[in-house]
């Protein structure tokens, strides 16, 4: 189908975009890369009366590397992040995740902020943001506020963003020496949303894991820290046998429900299997 009728505005600045969002409130939607919103319009799942196209706002675009952190502008395209040497150097988890997002033509347009603001429970970037303890920068009529990733994602397609706020970027602490990252997801077809996925980041010294952050996505209404599994492995010399045994702790971390794609029980099994694989990868990366 085709998108329903709407009116369109193309602001050049963040202030103009916020003015539009403030004026039109719930009737307006932000159009970034459009790789999820436009299908939703075409399928008539969404029918906002105003689209605020932020693609011309150059202040939202690009990566900035600072002393301690990397700022990813909300409009930065997936393709840009995928090919960025700064990302592979400072945010290796993100670099591993990018090729899993849809397909090359989608990654040309799709944006970092768009994926976060949509908050699909099976999406890669939200999971990496939680795993890397990122901070979301939200601009509204009364200025800026910062929200930790953990609090930004509040449920399926639900975030801390208010209707008059714009996500302007996400700040990541740079990965420190000794830390390793691993990422994996299970999909029926290449490029699909994950049935289940795992993002892991942690410090490895003398084959022992510490400061682990493991995030499960696709198995709940939002990306979830696997805190039981993390504490099970903290300080351990993680052999594959140890990881496999520890993965049963995941049953206390996620309670997958049945849906069209898999039963909760299948997802629970797949989560354990995938987490074991991803953590074994993490150990290999850390040792090499």
């Amino acid at each position, binding site marked *: *189908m*085709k*998108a*329903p*009728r*709407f*009116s*369109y*505005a*193309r*602001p050049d600045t963040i202030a*103009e975009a916020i*003015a*539009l969002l403030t*004026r*039109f409130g719930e009737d307006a939607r932000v159009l970034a890369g*459009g*790789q999820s919103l*436009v*299908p939703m319009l*075409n*399928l008539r799942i969404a029918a906002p009366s*105003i*689209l*605020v*196209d932020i*693609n011309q706002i150059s202040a939202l675009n690009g990566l900035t590397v600072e002393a301690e952190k990397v700022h990813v502008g909300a409009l930065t395209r997936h*393709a840009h992040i995928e090919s960025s040497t700064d990302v592979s150097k400072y945010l290796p988890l993100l670099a591993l995740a990018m090729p899993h997002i*849809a*397909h*090359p*033509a*989608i990654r*040309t*347009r799709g944006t970092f902020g768009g994926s976060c603001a949509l908050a699909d429970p099976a999406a890669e970037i939200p999971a990496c943001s939680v795993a890397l303890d990122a901070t979301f920068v939200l601009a509204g009529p009364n200025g800026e506020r910062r929200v930790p990733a953990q609090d930004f994602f509040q449920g399926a397609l639900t975030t801390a963003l208010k209707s008059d706020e714009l996500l302007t970027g996400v700040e990541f602490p740079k990965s420190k020496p000794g830390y390793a990252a691993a990422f994996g997801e299970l999909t029926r*077809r*290449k*490029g699909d949303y994950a049935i289940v996925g795992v993002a892991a980041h942690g410090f490895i010294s003398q084959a022992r894991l510490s400061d682990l952050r493991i995030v499960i996505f696709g198995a709940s209404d939002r990306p979830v820290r696997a805190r039981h599994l993390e504490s099970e492995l903290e300080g351990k010399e993680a052999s594959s046998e140890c990881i496999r045994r520890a993965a049963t702790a995941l049953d206390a971390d996620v309670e997958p429900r049945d849906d069209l794609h898999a039963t909760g029980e299948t997802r629970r099994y797949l989560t354990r299997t995938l987490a074991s694989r991803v953590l074994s990868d993490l150990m290999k990366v850390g040792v090499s």
Partner: protein
Amino acid sequence: MIEPKEVFDISLTVNGERLTRRVQVRTNLADFLRHDLELTGTHVGCEHGVCGACTVTLNGKIVRSCLMFAVQADNCEVQTIEGLSRSGVIKDLQDAFVQHNGVQCGFCTPGMLAAAHALLQQGPLPSRERIRDFLSGNYCRCTGYQAIVDSVQAAANQRARSSMP
């Protein structure tokens, strides 16, 4: 304050030709190319970004033309299969598709060619796995992927041979 509008005047370059048109903002780029410019080589399959039949290049990068509005191509440069064909840059790919039966019913072919062209621009001699990975966003409902991968690989091999001294 900017006033939101339902109709917009846009200027863009399509296949090297500079154009100015008035568009409804809800018109997607694929429909604009097909209906307003009569460039019907851009095919419309699923209209929600899954099938890849509508793949065109925007400022040199492949995109889904069903997932953006024509108004968003304002001041951009678009290449459709007509432009790619006429310029001759994918002649070898097209010949390989014919030779290796990669065309089949032809519906997915314009999108396949645009994507394959983008892949070969990234570097020579992609592996079969890499070709499959890159083309994973383009569906062939004849399900003749083997022939399509053969075609792309043949064109890549031919390019590698002809670039040797």
